[in-house]
């Protein structure tokens, strides 16, 4: 199954609680702060609790940047390990999630470069697998993101990267240029092309859904 055979809703999901959830997830509460501090000091129990919270975020970001769930799984482990090992060096002088995200991006891009096979595969049946194997109800937001990431899977990697860094992580063009080591103008060009390509894919999906 490919995305083109799937009716792709062009109406983005707008759950009334999504913004609240987003704000809540971005806010570091006291417990979270204690976990971060404790984990940085080597407290294992607090580090485990911290990773209970962090793991979904890491998995989601890796999946945004990676074609297919299988390779995302492998890279998630590497990224989580890099974060765990780097925690003692986290000094709290920047947003914790920003620090985590940068490590995840770095590890993911590195691992992806090391394995050409990673870029070549895409799991076309991901949504079905998610529904059947995990046995969890998929909410609308999740389903929308799955469809979106399946479209991302069909973008050229360099376009996908700038799209994810800009729209998923809210990074500026300058920050993306720094992260990827490319000129800012190249970032802008890739962003433009990525949106053109994404729009074409969405249209293609809608046409496929109608037929």
């Amino acid at each position, binding site marked *: 199954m490919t995305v083109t055979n799937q009716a792709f809703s062009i109406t983005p999901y707008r759950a009334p609680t*999504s913004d609240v*959830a987003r704000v809540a997830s971005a806010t570091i509460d006291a417990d979270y702060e204690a976990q971060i501090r404790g984990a940085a000091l080597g407290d294992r129990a607090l580090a485990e609790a911290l990773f209970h919270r962090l793991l*979904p975020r890491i998995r989601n970001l*890796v999946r945004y940047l990676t074609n297919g769930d299988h390779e995302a799984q492998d890279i998630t*482990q590497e990224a989580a390990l890099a974060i765990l090992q780097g925690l003692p060096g986290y000094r709290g002088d920047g947003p914790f999630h920003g620090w985590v995200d940068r490590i995840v991006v770095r590890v993911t891009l590195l691992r992806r470069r090391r394995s050409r*096979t990673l870029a070549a595969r895409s799991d076309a049946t991901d949504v079905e697998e998610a529904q059947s194997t995990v046995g969890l109800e998929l909410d609308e937001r999740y389903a929308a993101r799955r469809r979106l990431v399946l479209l991302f899977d069909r973008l050229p990697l360099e376009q996908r990267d700038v799209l994810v860094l800009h729209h*998923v992580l809210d990074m500026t063009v300058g920050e993306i240029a720094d992260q990827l080591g490319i000129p800012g103008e190249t970032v802008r060009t890739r962003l433009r092309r990525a949106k053109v390509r994404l729009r074409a894919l969405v249209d293609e999906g809608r046409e496929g859904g109608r037929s």
Partner: protein
Amino acid sequence: MSIRDADLDALLEDAKLDDEGGPALPLDEAARSREIEALFARRDALLEARSLVPREGRLRRSQHVALGGLLLGAALLTVFARQSTTSQSGARRSVEGSPTVAAADPHQERPTPVATPASEPRSVDVASLPSLPSLPPVTAPLAERATASSSPPPASPRTNAEEEEAEDLLRTANRLRADKQWSEATRTYEKVLERYGRSGQAYPAMVSAASLRLNRLSDPAGALRLYERALAARPTGTLAEEALFGQARAYRDLGRTDDERSALRRFISNHPSSWHADDARQRLQELERGRGHETGAADNRAESPTR
């Protein structure tokens, strides 16, 4: 009609990263716990390796070769000295007694051989550990296997209490390993297998015990049995990379070159982007050039390209 810019922007707006909500496949609580357990097991293995071997960066191959020769000499001297003071040397291969040679770890890239403090517990009595063959063989996925050992197997189906007990035991083992009580830690990991073989903790315990047997207890045969169990139980599990690499290294230590070659090929094929893949390829090339046959287990430890 083409999708409007505003709709496309809104789609992307909904993609903003948060802690839940995808797009990764959902992970239930038990799976998340297993992932985290595996993560800490990997980290512990790294710490363990580094506690033995303070690294100053990768050595070049030529440096390995030069150091390998020196260390081999030191190792032989050490073994000679040890043999004169103990009658238990039969259980250990000579080079493994060398306090100057770093124990290898699957996570360690290339160890820098340094002198180990005198307190380093290298002289573990492997014979005092429980016999591995008494552990139940893997003939089916771990979750479906019943354990058969002297300890009472858990009731089926497993309960939350059993899971918690297994977790506690695994934590105890991790703590013992952190305290460098290798023998006791190995025993405790293996207790997890004996008592809670069907729990989610059994798999990381298996790989951790294997790593300790290989790297700390100079028991590649015991390590191999555990790695094989882990690979049979979960061929694509979260620790399959470590298990397969460890298996290749155990074969190497046992001098089973053909098996090592097969394991390395499997490792490269299954984990082409692993941190160890380049080392595995290099070692495989050596073996295929026939050089692997010339290097014994002794200099393996000193200049292993696969570590």
